[in-house]
């Protein structure tokens, strides 16, 4: 193969290397430009609202009635936070429990099978969870605490949706845990409980925290599953069975007919999400690559 490239003077190896180097560097710059572009356009489209309405009215207006000029976004921000916290609080123990069980009690072959199944489950479209929640879960909750479409249903559906991802992320966080340490702990007569809580968990707490942050990010950004089961009333919820509207759902619901300041206000919703996400990613400090593939 090298003889071919040597005989072809028009594209000598070094020149081709130069071309390829240029191409991949351009792609790298394009990747950065893409994020810069997203930030630029979201900010640019938000500006009319930020200048006309002003930042403070997004928190001080009486309600969110954009067609009547009321732009209080606080209920949606609170809704997003509550749904996210609820989902993560449900998903994290469930996923961690399953992962620990897999590590301690499943033979390696079975674990590989379970992991494969969970990769497949992690890919289930969010709209499918939304549909299931809408048709099955919401009526169940409605029978107990009407109206059904609520903070609770949204948190549950979202928790189900992110659990496979959380499990994969936490499993990756425990990957390559030195087998010698586990064997040494066993030789000292430590129980599985002690090995998990006193050997593995302390050693991997940062990686697991990263997994938890990534799970939060996933929940924060979800639109469809939440939109279909949360009830979407833009008001502060006072109980678990009250309907809520999240920032993402707000955009999806109103973008179709929004114009002018209203449209710009929806871009402000997007901007708030973007800022939240960037703040959370910054707390990771570039550690997310340790749990890349999931």
């Amino acid at each position, binding site marked *: 193969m090298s003889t071919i490239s040597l005989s072809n003077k028009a594209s000598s190896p070094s020149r081709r290397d130069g071309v390829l180097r240029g191409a991949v560097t351009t*792609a790298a710059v394009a990747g950065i430009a893409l994020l810069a572009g997203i930030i630029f356009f979201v900010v640019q489209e938000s500006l009319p609202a930020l200048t006309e309405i002003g930042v403070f009215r997004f928190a001080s207006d009486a309600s969110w009635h954009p067609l009547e000029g009321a732009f209080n976004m606080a209920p949606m921000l609170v809704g997003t936070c509550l749904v996210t916290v609820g989902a993560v609080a449900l998903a994290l123990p*469930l996923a961690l429990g399953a992962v620990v*069980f897999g590590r301690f009690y499943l033979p390696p072959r079975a674990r590989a099978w379970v992991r494969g*199944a969970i990769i497949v489950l992690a890919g289930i479209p969010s709209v499918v969870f939304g549909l299931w929640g809408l048709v099955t879960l919401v009526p169940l909750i409605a029978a107990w605490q009407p109206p059904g479409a609520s903070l609770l249903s949204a948190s549950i559906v979202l928790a189900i949706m992110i659990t496979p991802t959380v499990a994969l992320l936490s499993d990756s966080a425990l990957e390559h845990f030195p087998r010698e340490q586990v064997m040494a702990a066993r030789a000292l007569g430590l129980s599985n409980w002690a090995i998990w809580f006193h050997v593995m968990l302390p050693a991997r707490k940062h990686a697991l925290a990263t997994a938890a942050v990534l799970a939060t990010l996933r929940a924060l950004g979800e639109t469809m599953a939440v939109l279909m089961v949360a009830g979407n009333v833009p008001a502060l919820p006072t109980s678990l069975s009250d309907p809520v509207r999240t920032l993402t759902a707000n955009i999806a619901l109103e973008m179709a007919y929004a114009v002018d300041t209203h449209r710009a206000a929806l*871009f402000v919703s997007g901007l708030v999400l973007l800022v939240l996400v960037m703040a959370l990613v910054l707390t990771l400090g570039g550690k997310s690559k340790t749990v890349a593939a999931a």
Partner: protein
Amino acid sequence: MRATALTSRRFKKDAVLAVFGGSALVCIGVVFVAIVGEMLWQGLTSLSWTYLVSAPSESGRGGGIGPIIVSTAAIVGISMAVTVPLGLATAIFLSELPRQHPRLARVLRQCIDVLAATPSIVIGLFGSVFFAVTLGFGLSILSGGLTLACMALPLFVRVAEAGLRTVPGNYRQAARALNLSWTGTLVHIVIPAALPTIGAGLALAIGRAAAETAALIFTSGYVDRMPSSWFDSGRALSVHIYDLAMNVPGGDQRAFAAALVLLLLVFIINLVAAATLTRLFGQAGK
């Protein structure tokens, strides 16, 4: 005495761990079987060959999903046509050149992290301004595909980079010893060796793109006719499910059928990815 007390306490704690973990795993399994089971149960009745190929009528309550499958394939196809070359080049940069451009590589990594975490609806907002208005593609399959490309890119880059990095260093040394150029080494040695992982990354990216709804609502739109060009608006399968479930009274049954089709599609794609990744990293890694 003391020893037995200790043993029994030990036993109890271990039992708690095993029971909690085991029930968590069973609980996850049961919920997912329930969800997939319901899609099968409710969807299978409406599923037929005519359903897959015919056009929808009465906003989807009747007819089939033929044009919607075509639009979905076109949107996903366009997104992959952009994601794969751009993502592969980015992955090559991250795995091969970080030492030459340490700063650029670090910033790029941060950007990929943020992009991967950016809510799809925000990428949809960007697409609805940049692709649909600034570039003038309008509400079209092209806008939708390009928007999905932005979304799938970080996922593909990460998996492809992981694949390129796992190619053993002595492959490169042997290639260097044979006077193979950098390009030659990449094209003939490193990329072929990493191909299974890159393929798995592609499958995951296709699955992610096919599953996406939020970013498409206001980039590729709702029109459920057969698209005649990529500047036409086209309704993706996931958008169809959403619309039937939320906006069409009595559309539930058809929503389940469409959900079943999407689910099977995504399952097959992800199964390929999972099998490949598990074989490569699952057992070998431990």
